[in-house]
């Protein structure tokens, strides 16, 4: 498959050149996925999809146009190249347009399992049945939806400057969403998901996921309002994407810096958070779904500190933003890859006892403005503690604060950093100065 994609990519580059492009970049992908879905209390559908796409970026007279198609054949590809050139013709001149030079990314083995690529449909259905059987052991868990999926993806990125990289990966992935339900009560919904690159260990992970969701939603039955206060809250790993990692990614982005939107444009080497925060982008962490040998334009991706002991160490750049800013690409076209936050020194019990009033936020349903850093939303699936003693699950309780202030107010982090749904590897984080509204 890789050879076929390479031929398609080379032909598309030639097509773009023939139509007058000064330089061009192509990404060709092929994906086969099989999925079994659960809805309305039962298995509901079995799906097989084969998808392919070719994406083209052209530069002509320092103007950019992009196009893509999943239609096959020379004429469809020629049409895509023509559309990209047409858009470039009407686009504005940009003297900084550029493409990365040839790369030789270090291979990242461990993400392709032939057993997934050849997984019999019956085995996929068996895994799905096992997954749901475990979740259904908890009778008070009403499953709204779930699926198990097996995927094989091949990719080639090539450009007219000689870059050509390729990759193949397999994934078994799953998701389950549900709520606690009794005759008199329905809880907020909650969800869990995960991936495995191969078949080894997947049965245990599916069982764990199904069991864990049941425990989580049942723990939310019988919620009451908490108290309004301004003070400490304990953020679970599931909240850190919205409240910490996404806004941080915004402010370290070379693109936001060059556009004057980052507050951290002059903060390299300076304290931006409490000194107990250390955050790393590690694209070679195979426990995380963002593990990859290269970024979205084929530039090698490697482990880098983003924040070390509270000090900002990284502005992330693509080839384009690096040229605009007079620096070099950090291998971050498309953003950060696989985030790890280093653990702290406190046990979960010590963190729970660290404040007289404490909301433990398990899921955040709200908005965060990345520019101001202001956030506000509902503390979902959350729990209330007083003086380290558990009180009750919460309902109709909102939290509000500011990302920049919150970073300065990190009290402590839990002593374990675990992969959360294979998305981030992060601990629980105790922060101060958050407004809790429960009127």
């Amino acid at each position, binding site marked *: 498959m890789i050879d076929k994609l390479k031929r398609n990519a080379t032909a598309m580059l030639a097509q773009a050149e023939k139509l007058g492009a000064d330089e061009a970049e192509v990404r060709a992908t092929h994906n086969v996925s099989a999925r079994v879905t659960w809805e309305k209390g039962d298995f509901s559908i079995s799906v*097989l999809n084969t998808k392919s796409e070719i994406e083209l970026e052209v530069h002509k007279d320092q103007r950019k146009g992009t196009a893509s198609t999943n239609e096959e054949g020379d004429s469809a590809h020629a049409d895509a190249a023509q559309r990209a050139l047409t858009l470039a013709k009407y686009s504005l001149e940009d003297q900084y347009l550029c493409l990365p030079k040839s790369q030789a990314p270090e291979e990242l083995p461990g993400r392709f399992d032939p057993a997934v690529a050849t997984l019999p449909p*019956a085995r996929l259905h068996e895994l799905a*049945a096992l997954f749901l059987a475990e979740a259904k052991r908890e009778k008070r868990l009403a499953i709204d939806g779930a699926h198990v999926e097996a995927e094989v993806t091949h990719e080639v990125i090539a450009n007219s400057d000689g870059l050509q990289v390729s990759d193949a990966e397999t994934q078994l992935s799953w998701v389950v969403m549900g709520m606690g339900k009794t005759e008199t009560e329905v809880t*907020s919904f909650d969800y869990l998901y995960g991936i495995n690159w191969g078949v080894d260990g997947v049965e245990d992970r599916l069982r764990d996921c199904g069991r864990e969701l049941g425990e989580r939603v049942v723990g939310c039955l019988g919620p009451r309002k908490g108290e*309004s206060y301004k003070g400490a809250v304990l953020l679970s790993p599931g909240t850190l994407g919205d409240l910490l990692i996404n806004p941080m990614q915004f402010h370290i982005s070379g693109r936001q810096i060059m556009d004057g939107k980052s507050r951290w444009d002059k903060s390299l080497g300076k304290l931006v958070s409490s000194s107990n925060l250390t955050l790393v982008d590690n694209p070679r962490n195979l426990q995380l779904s963002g593990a990859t040998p290269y970024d979205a334009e084929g530039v090698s991706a490697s482990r880098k500190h983003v924040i070390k002991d509270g000090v900002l160490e990284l502005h992330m750049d693509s080839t384009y933003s690096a040229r605009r800013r007079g620096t070099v690409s950090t291998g971050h076209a498309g953003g950060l890859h696989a985030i790890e936050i280093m653990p702290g020194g406190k046990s979960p019990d010590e963190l729970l006892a660290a404040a007289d009033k404490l909301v433990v936020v398990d899921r955040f349903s709200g908005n965060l403005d990345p*520019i101001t850093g*202001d956030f506000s939303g509902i503390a979902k699936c959350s729990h209330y503690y007083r003086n380290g003693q558990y009180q009750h699950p919460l309902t109709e309780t909102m939290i509000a604060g500011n990302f920049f202030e919150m970073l300065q107010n990190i009290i402590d982090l839990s002593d374990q950093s675990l992969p959360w749904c294979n998305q981030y590897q992060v601990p629980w984080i105790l922060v101060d100065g958050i407004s809790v509204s429960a*009127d």
Partner: protein
Amino acid sequence: MKTQLETIVGKQQGWVELRYHRRLLNDLTVQKGRVDIANSTVIAGIGVRVLENGCWGFASTVDLSSAAIERAIDSARANAREVSKIQAKKIPDLPATELSRDEIVMEGYNDLLRKPLDEKLAMVVDMERETLGRSSKILTAISSYREMFEDKIIVTSDGASAAHKLVRPELRLTAIASQDGEQIAARNNLGVTGGWNCLFDHHRAQNIVENTAREAVELLSAPYITGGTATCILAPSIVGLLSHEAIGHTVEADFVIAGSVAQGQIGKRVGSELVTMCDSSASELGEFAAGEIPFDDEGVPARKTTIIDKGIMKSYLHNRESAVHFGVEPTGNARAWLYHDEPLIRMRNTYIEPGEQTLEEIIASTPEGYLLMGAGSGQADATGEFMFGSDYAVEIKDGKLGKKFREVTISGVAFDVLKSVDAVSSEFQWDLGSGYCGKGQPAKVDAGGPYVRCRIMLGGRQ
């Protein structure tokens, strides 16, 4: 293509659905005087769904030859047979229902396809430049235009054979104002089903540059609101979001069966007598709503569904399968995002019907509260508890509007909020046409309504 699909379906045994879908998506974004996005995407193929052994099987193909489509049918059948081994409850045969045989080209499709891309890009470039020039406090302006041309053909073995072509253009403008190291964004986004003129007839397109720039500058000095429960008048965009997120999702029949808070509520009071809420595939009360469809992705013709009538829940939203489950007619809510997606129960244009008072009268009769303007993103869950953002709030004291407060998050429990409604205005607007609903797959929807007064919780920072 339609004849080819009819021929293939005619040779099949059992229930088969073929859906051809080709999308042309053009995206243009300008900021800081440069074109960030100038992209054109084509994605096309055929989705095949079969009902065999009482189970659904699905497969798709990008190869449009008859042989490839027949192979996809075989794959879908094999999938259905496989899942039937683990699916406990089998789906009964779908009863006969009215199915579309229309061929429709909706307003604006051909005109917009003919309009040159350079004119569209020039508009986006001008809009960014003009916004930036409105005030020295505007740090950045981002203008975007998107158009989505949709060609669909649905053929089923029980009689649907319909085709449509429609286009949905969208316009987005963001202004980021800056002062003393502080930055704040104001946004105006809109979308319609229709052509260029339909887009620029939308109320948000009127003076969009001036309004967006002014709002960003004004909000720079606006304070934060105090948290707590308050009397609020919700703007049409927020009423639309409330209708869609907090209530609409709970009445999607698949979610009802799974255990949403709307389960068992048909015939019961869920809102005040002033509340009548509908979901429609057409554009009642205002033109060119962005969720318009002439028929759904099962070929069921367009229709309006009254979900809540004067506060009493009347109907859920159905596809053909859930309609059988509940013993009712399908409501035309089966929708798929792309050819390789199976149809799910989705909303279209969701709204609360207007009342009789004017907005001025409602403000004048409010001793203390807020007028909440502009919907941000929102979420709701099975309990009906919802959260969404509002762009800004205007204080009301003794029946008069006062100072502005910056972005606020509002929350509540949907049916409690509906029961607290004590005033509904006569004005009506579609105002979520730039939005996309997420439920495993995206869906293009719209929502709106009148101004509505209710009690709601505000998330503050004090």
